[in-house]
């Protein structure tokens, strides 16, 4: 591990009940980079994110965030360590307004002034949300929900952003915009992103590192460029 590795995962085993879904995952994400985890359905991608954010308790292994072991840290404390998890389906709270959803993302912060600034920045970043502040979550379009979920995570000024299937159910144009935004955030603010995707092409287009999972293991971790260009690898593991 080097000083610049923000997330280091060693030998992570986790699952639901007796049968582990993840079998000894090793993974390293350097600070200020985007890692895309791809793989077939059931490879354990979502489970990996859930284990990282503590929503399921790993049976074995180690998760280090900026060198700190996260073992035993309650889920609600992880955001204080700098980890934001946007879950599958994005977790917009439909009964709350856009503004309430966003403010919720910064409520844990002691620095109220900066939480306010972060909220303003998110409204600048996502114009449509600013126009819909008082709308309820369930009144938003899919693209707007995506913005809201992402914006809500950003209000907490995370160091590491875990994104579960951000392209799910969205138009290609919206997916492209989301990916471009991730790249922009990485370049401007040094945000580190761990992205789980079914949409392999868009994910590898934006990522620095590609991680291919199969049946609960990491089978390849390589520069995204290499995965994109290596026809044999793509055929063998990604099916295109």
């Amino acid at each position: 591990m080097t000083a610049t590795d923000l997330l280091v995962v060693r030998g992570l085993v986790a699952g639901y009940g007796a049968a582990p879904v993840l079998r000894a995952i090793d993974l390293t994400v350097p600070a200020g980079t985007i890692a895309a985890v791809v793989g077939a359905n059931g490879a354990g991608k979502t489970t990996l994110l859930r284990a990282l954010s503590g929503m399921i308790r790993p049976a074995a292994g180690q998760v280090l965030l900026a060198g700190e072991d996260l073992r035993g840290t309650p889920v609600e404390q992880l955001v204080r360590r700098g980890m934001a998890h946007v879950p599958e389906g994005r977790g917009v709270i439909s009964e709350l307004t856009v503004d309430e959803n966003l403010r919720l993302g910064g409520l844990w912060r002691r620095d109220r002034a900066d939480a306010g600034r972060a909220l303003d920045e998110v409204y600048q970043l996502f114009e449509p949300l600013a126009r819909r502040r008082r709308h309820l979550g369930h009144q938003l379009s899919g693209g707007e929900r995506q913005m809201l979920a992402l914006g809500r995570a950003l209000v907490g000024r995370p160091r590491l952003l875990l994104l579960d299937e951000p392209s799910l159910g969205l138009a290609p144009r919206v997916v492209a915009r989301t990916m471009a935004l991730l790249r922009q955030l990485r370049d401007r603010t040094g945000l580190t992103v761990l992205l789980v995707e079914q949409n392999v092409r868009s994910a590898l287009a934006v990522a620095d590192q590609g991680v291919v999972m199969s049946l609960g293991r990491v089978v390849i971790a390589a520069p995204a460029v290499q995965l994109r260009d290596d026809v044999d690898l793509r055929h063998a593991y990604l099916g295109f």
Partner: protein
Amino acid sequence: MDRFVFLTVDGLSRGAVYAAFALALVLIWRAARVVNFAQGAMAVAAAYVAYTVSTATGSYWLGFVVAIVAGLLLGALVDRAVMRHVDHASPLNPVIVALGLVLLIQAVLGMVYGSEFRPAEAPFSRSALTVGGVAVLSPYDLFVFATIGVVVSGLAWMFARTPVGLRMRAAAFAPEVSRLLGVNVGGMLTLGWALASGVGALAAMLVLPTELGLHPHAMDLVFVSAFTAAVVGGLDSPPGAVVGGLVVGLLLSYVSGYAGSDLTPLAVLVLLLAVLLVRPGGLFAPVAARRV
């Protein structure tokens, strides 16, 4: 006409208490998806604590404050010590446990205080003031309206406008997502139980002086009325609980005034049945289906 005015005011006054009690049920339902059948017994327990303090010190108001504090603490205790450990996989489990709590609390109260009625003191006169020859409101009615008005608007303000209210709503609607956003969901749940139980204790303190007095079963019928009020309003809707409480209060007052007080328990059950048959979601059921 005089009689109608009197019955209306009396109904609204009791309805205000049902509204507060129904609101307490809704608070717990929204936070924990549990209908707290033990709420009546818990409120009576708090009222007994107040009775002990008031008789020892001679101060009604000290007892009044202690009742609310005891209610808050009892709510937190019931959540932490009992409900937190109940498997919520079947909705029936917490209901059975709550009914068990009723038996337990009532038995303990019976052992400690005996089961005879104890007088419940009213801090203000209960005889109605007359306006233009018509008996309208008693000072005590005014006290009830004012107290419940303050508590209900205070809660509404807290949920709508404060960070802790936002956390509580978020934790109730989406516990998993809320934890990811740094909300202490378990703490919010305990706070919800405490607040609800505190409101329940307040309602008991307000209604007992208008009934036979303090008794381990003193809140049983009030609970049935308040539960009906909560169902009328839709268990998920705090404004619905308040309107439902006033509706039930008025209905019972008219039934008991015009048809005889023997019929009031029956009237509550008929209303409960009618609402469940015709509009099971309650009159204030939210229009949008829940999607996450």
